[in-house]
Structure formats: C-alpha cells, structure tokens
C-alpha cells in the first residue's frame, strides 16, 4: 500500500499513532477502489473492515424499513468510516457507503484494529475523540429536526443548492433537482417536498416543474429559511 504513516496521521483516529504502529496498520490493510455510484459496503453487511478514504468522496446513507433514505454525512479524504467493527465484534454496518465519484479507501480489517486498540490506549482515546464529535454533530442535527419546521428545512436545502448551482434566468434563479434529492437533504419524504413546493408555487414564490425549480421570490425564501417571516 502506497501510503505513509505521515499521511495516515491526518486521520483523527490515528493522529497520535507512532510510525511503527501506523506501519502495522498499513501492513495489515489493502487498498480498495470503488467506481462512482458503487458501494464500499451496504447497511446490514458484517462490519469486517474499517475504511480510511484516500481519494474521492463518499456518502453514508441510512434507510428505514420503508426504504426511505437519509444522507447521514459526506466523507472526504483522510476520514475514517465504517469503524463499528473495531469496537464491536460481529457488528453490522449501520449505514451504506456510496461513492459520489471514483474513490479509493484503505480497508483495515476490523479484527486487527480491535486488537490494536486494546493494546494501545492512546489510539482508543483518538477514536473516542472522533466518536464524541460525531455524537455532538448528531445532537445538533436532532435539535434541528425536532425544532425546525419541515418547510424551513426544505427551504434551507433549496437555498443551499441555489447558492451552489443555481443559474440566473429571466425572472429568477433556476436549479435542477429532484423531489427525492430534496427529501434526502432535508430529512423528509418526497411527498412532503411535493406538498411544500406546490404551496410555494401557489404563493408565487417558486415555479416548480419536473426535476427543476425556479425561484421567483428569493427574498421570501430567505425569510422563511431564517425564520424571519
């Protein structure tokens, strides 16, 4: 594997690893490449490997029994994912990891990592730091879900997309998106997205077509997203 301990130290969970320890990790690991839209693992698979993303981008998706998907997070190079097996033997991945572009990741056998952590408490502390930051992030996500109205969340998602990929057209700002994308981004169902878009359409704030939305009154959406209205 063509990765140095120095590079691996960029991973939060390995930042206090010694060269020797990280060499051992690299020695036990293999490099896996996954093409755009393919999966590193699926929700429910045995968590046999922990991964460190080396190139590309990956999103973690969780689905409920009705098949509704929630985008948990997007991962960038030198982030650890799928590490559940390192702390729980016979664990299963709680989410699927899908490549958003051609991606590569270091696959570290969970058993190896579990034994390594047991003998090297400083590495366990690093992993706990990472987990603590995930818990904090989830708590603030939960707060948002529990307190913000669904309409406000959808509105924020539309504005985020518009600022990144919107195109100025004659009477507004146009963006291409599906109701499924929007539902995934705002933690709701495509049905609710349709209902909210139809309401905005009726109020003259947007023109909602198939797979595209034209924002006619940007300021009205900003007020809605910021809770000013």
């Amino acid at each position: 594997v063509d990765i140095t301990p120095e590079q691996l130290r960029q991973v939060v969970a390995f930042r206090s690893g010694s060269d020797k320890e990280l060499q051992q990790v690299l020695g036990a690991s293999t490099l896996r490449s996954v093409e755009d839209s393919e999966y590193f693992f699926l929700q429910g698979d045995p968590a046999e490997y922990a991964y460190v993303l080396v190139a590309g981008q990956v999103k973690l998706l969780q689905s409920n029994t009705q098949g509704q998907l929630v985008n948990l997070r997007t991962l960038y190079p030198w982030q650890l994912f799928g590490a559940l097996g390192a702390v729980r033997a016979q664990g299963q991945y709680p989410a699927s990891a899908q490549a958003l572009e051609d991606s590569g990741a270091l696959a570290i056998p969970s058993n190896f990592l579990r034994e390594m952590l047991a003998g090297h408490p400083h590495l366990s502390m690093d992993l706990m730091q990472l987990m603590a930051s995930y818990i904090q992030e989830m708590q603030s996500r939960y707060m948002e879900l529990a307190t913000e109205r669904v309409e406000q969340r959808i509105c924020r998602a539309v504005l985020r997309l518009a600022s990144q990929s919107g195109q100025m057209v004659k009477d507004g700002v146009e963006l291409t998106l599906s109701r499924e994308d929007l539902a995934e981004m705002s933690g709701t169902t495509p049905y609710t997205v349709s209902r909210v878009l139809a309401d905005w359409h009726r109020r003259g704030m947007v023109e909602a077509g198939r797979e595209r939305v034209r924002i006619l009154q940007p300021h009205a959406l900003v007020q809605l997203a910021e809770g000013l209205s």
Partner: protein
Amino acid sequence: MSAPQLSAESTIAEALEGSPAITSVLIARRTACIGCYMARFCTLHTAAAVYGIPWDAFLSDLTAAALDSHSTFGGEHV
C-alpha cells in the same frame, strides 16, 4: 485607484467583493444580505425594494462607504 462603480444592477456579491466597506451600510440598514444564500443573484436595487429602503438614499450611503474606504486605504483592501 477609484472605488468600483456601484449601480442598481450590481449584485450584492459583486458589490461586497469590490467594496467590502459597504458591509456596515448593509448591517446599519438592517438587511440580511451579509452571508445570504442569494447574494450572487440579488441586485442592490432589489435589496432596497424588499427592505423598503429609499433607493437614492441607499445608493448614496453605499457609495460614500465605498469611496471612504478606498481613499483611506489608497485603494487597497485591508
């Protein structure tokens, strides 16, 4: 060097990029333009309209703030 020209058609993003000093005017006028997702699309004139600010007074405040900072700092943003 003179300050970039501000006009009704300048977008908020362009205006802020060319003349960061107008930030104080946008805040004093109680707009939510700073950090707004729509700054790339919304013009100064639209902002004045949606916040109910008289256009002429708004433009003159913005221009004064922009010119002031350019003369103070010799045209360099600091």
